[in-house]
């Protein structure tokens, strides 16, 4: 809302919940809770990364053969898209701290849009894999049928990227819901902290993909 001086900044703050003694304690508890959850997610993904790396050590030729059939350039583009989305999410956090609600909403929508572009590209990649018979878990011929070890790596690829995609779908959905909440009057005055805590989740999704891309697509290609 613009004031007489032309300022668009709104009051920013946090509504103190009764179980906390101070706003700082409430803020810290929310951040710590998000980190606790993110670390369990990290352990989940770390197991999959380790599987992929062990397969690379045990069956290097089979894995190299399988990776040549992955869509390297779509993976690279998707990494760039997520890095852009991390930038817009940082923009949303910065503008929320400053109380620039309209800018913040724009940044949040841009982040959701970039997340959706990632999902569309991933869907297109899966569609191409399907056409090339690179889905060994389906009841159809598998392109690398003679190389049974490659199937292990391809299965890990689908589990990892599928799980990451699921997190991204959840992330975009929550972000759109949060954007709707943030569009309500006085949101920043009472709930600015939600943007910060959600931002951690989005950056974490980006971080996981930053590891997925080299582990599955790039190493010893």
């Amino acid at each position, binding site marked *: 809302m613009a004031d007489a*001086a*032309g*300022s*668009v*900044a709104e009051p920013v703050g946090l509504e103190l919940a009764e179980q906390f003694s101070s706003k700082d304690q409430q803020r*810290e508890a929310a*951040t*710590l809770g998000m*980190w*606790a959850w*993110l*670390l369990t997610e*990290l*352990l989940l993904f*770390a*197991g999959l*990364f*380790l599987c992929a*790396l*062990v397969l690379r*050590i*045990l069956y290097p030729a089979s894995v190299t053969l399988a990776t040549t059939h992955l869509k*390297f350039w779509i993976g*690279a583009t998707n*990494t*760039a898209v997520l*890095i*852009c989305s*991390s*930038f817009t999410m*940082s*923009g949303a956090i*910065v*503008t929320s*701290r*400053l109380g*620039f609600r309209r*800018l913040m909403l724009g940044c949040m929508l841009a982040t959701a849009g970039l997340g959706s572009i990632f999902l569309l590209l991933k869907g297109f990649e899966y569609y191409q894999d399907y056409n090339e018979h690179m889905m060994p878990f389906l009841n159809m011929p598998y392109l690398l049928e003679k190389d049974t070890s490659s199937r292990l790596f391809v299965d890990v690829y689908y589990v990892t990227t599928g799980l990451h995609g699921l997190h991204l779908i959840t992330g975009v959905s929550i972000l759109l819901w949060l954007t709707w909440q943030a569009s309500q009057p006085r949101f920043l005055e009472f709930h600015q902290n939600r943007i910060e805590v959600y931002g*951690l989740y989005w*950056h*974490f999704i*980006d*971080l996981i993909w*930053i*590891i997925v*891309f*080299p582990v599955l*697509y*790039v*190493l*010893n*290609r």
Partner: protein
Amino acid sequence: MTGNERRLLLRRMRTPAITFVVLLLLLCSNVVLGATLPFRGAYIVEAVITACMVLTVLLVSMEIVHEPPLIRLFSAVGFFWVTIMFGMTLVDYLSR
């Protein structure tokens, strides 16, 4: 938006913008290495670049350095745990 607000916004966006550019440059390096495979040990450089990208996101984008000590400790212990898991497993397979 007043001139002061615009300047404040630009100043606050400087770190995210620099992080964005750094991450894109690191990604470009990894993509070039992956696409051309210029030498046998390229995977070591790719792994180092990836580690730099992860640290950049953790320390700057996720702002761990500005968090209270308890959260810093918590996140460090979590990533250290993963390092132990990777280290012990890979030492086993790589030393066979």
